[in-house]
């Protein structure tokens, strides 16, 4: 068994706060960006945070944390290019294995953690990711998913949710934002069968850090899909970041689950498990959509009930599918 139930650790905020920060202030991510919280939680959750190498795909996080001559990384860190973070990490992992075999590196192998945005993971980096997973490199790939190419100015990605307006899928008179549904990256990765897969939400920090711990304890590759709220691209007040993050899970748009590569089981966790057991606690998607400017055209100048209804029905269907996978139906 691999997963949160196997993790013998009950994290507390006091414990997490006492751990040093390996991601430093002075970075230049936008105010209210959730990505730094994702990085902070990931690095604090690792069992041996001193023995870590971080690989970062091109993206907001990479750019805004290493504007020369400054770096926000108090751990060794490498950025190569956009589409090859997983391949780069493969090389890092293989290198330490070889150096250990030759006696140059002594002690435990470093944990290789990758941070990639949705563009670098769902789209341009999918091949490199799939290759690295298939080869079974021991790495923890953390996808921070802000659902568009935010670094270049909010362009459509295969991760962008349906009917969200981006700068390349604007809400037009004919086409109301992105026409297609979001690509199910977690299931695609889980289909590799040797990967521990988990969705996380920084709002649900306890579930988040336990899943990182579970990933670190698993001997093979792990893929962590974090929803990463982006005030700039989602068009909302920065103070609402964690509210919207919470709603992403409570509406079941970003349910919390994990895939156990040993038992091949899907398990629903934390808040989503509570909703699975208490279906009346599931929040209508409208509560989530209406807070964000990228969905404003669904409400103004006239309310487009049929589009909101369409999203709700698809979310319900996806959630039902997950419940079936996890043995609830």
């Amino acid at each position, binding site marked *: 068994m691999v997963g949160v139930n196997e993790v013998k650790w009950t994290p507390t*905020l*006091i414990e*997490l*706060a*006492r751990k040093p*920060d390996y*991601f*430093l*202030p*002075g*970075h*230049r*991510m936008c*105010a*209210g*960006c*959730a*990505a*730094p*919280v994702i990085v*902070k*939680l990931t690095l604090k959750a690792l069992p041996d945070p001193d023995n870590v190498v971080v690989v970062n795909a091109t993206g907001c996080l990479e750019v805004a*944390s*290493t*504007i*020369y*001559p*400054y*770096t*926000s990384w*108090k751990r060794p860190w490498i950025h190569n290019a956009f589409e090859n973070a997983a391949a780069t990490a493969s090389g890092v992992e293989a290198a330490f294995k070889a150096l250990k075999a030759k006696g140059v590196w002594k002690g435990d192998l470093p944990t290789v953690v990758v941070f990639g945005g949705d563009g670098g993971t769902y789209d341009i980096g999918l091949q490199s990711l799939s290759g690295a997973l298939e080869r079974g490199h021991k790495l923890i790939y953390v996808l921070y998913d802000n659902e568009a190419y935010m670094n270049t100015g909010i362009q459509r990605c295969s991760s962008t949710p349906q009917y969200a307006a981006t700068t390349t899928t604007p809400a037009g008179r004919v086409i109301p934002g992105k026409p297609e549904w979001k690509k199910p990256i977690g299931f695609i990765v889980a289909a590799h069968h040797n990967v521990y897969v988990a969705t996380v939400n*920084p*709002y649900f*920090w306890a579930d988040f850090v336990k899943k990182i711990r579970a990933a670190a304890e698993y001997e093979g590759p792990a893929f962590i899909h974090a929803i990463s709220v982006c*005030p700039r691209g989602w068009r909302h*007040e*920065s*103070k*609402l*970041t*964690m*509210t919207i993050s919470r709603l992403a899970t409570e509406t079941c748009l970003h349910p919390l689950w994990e895939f156990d590569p040993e038992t091949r089981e899907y398990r629903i966790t934390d808040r989503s498990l509570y909703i699975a057991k208490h279906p009346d606690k599931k929040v209508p998607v409208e509560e989530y959509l209406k807070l964000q400017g990228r969905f404003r055209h669904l409400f103004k100048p006239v309310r487009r009930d049929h589009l909101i209804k369409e999203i709700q029905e698809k979310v319900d269907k996806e959630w039902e599918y997950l419940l079936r996978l996890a043995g609830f139906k």
Partner: protein
Amino acid sequence: MSGAELRKWNEVPIAGVPWKFSTEYKTGDWRSERPVIDHGKCTKCLFCYIYCPEMAIKVHWTSDGSKPEKVEVDYNFCKGCGICANVCPMKAINMELERR
């Protein structure tokens, strides 16, 4: 931009390796609103700490190091996003207009 004096090519490490931590770069001047903690209401639950994207919530610990004694905002880095005020269950953080 570097914001520092510009060095010659032979005065910086090779391979483009940065030579300063970003803690030397203060992002506090981005702020238009400043979070102010009402220490009378604060229960030191640390929600603000864990959700702050700027690592700008400073925790002072009791002498035995077991409990948080006081929580403070590091205005050197706080960008004024307001997440802390919004997540605070005690409504102990107010966002006040920044006056410079």
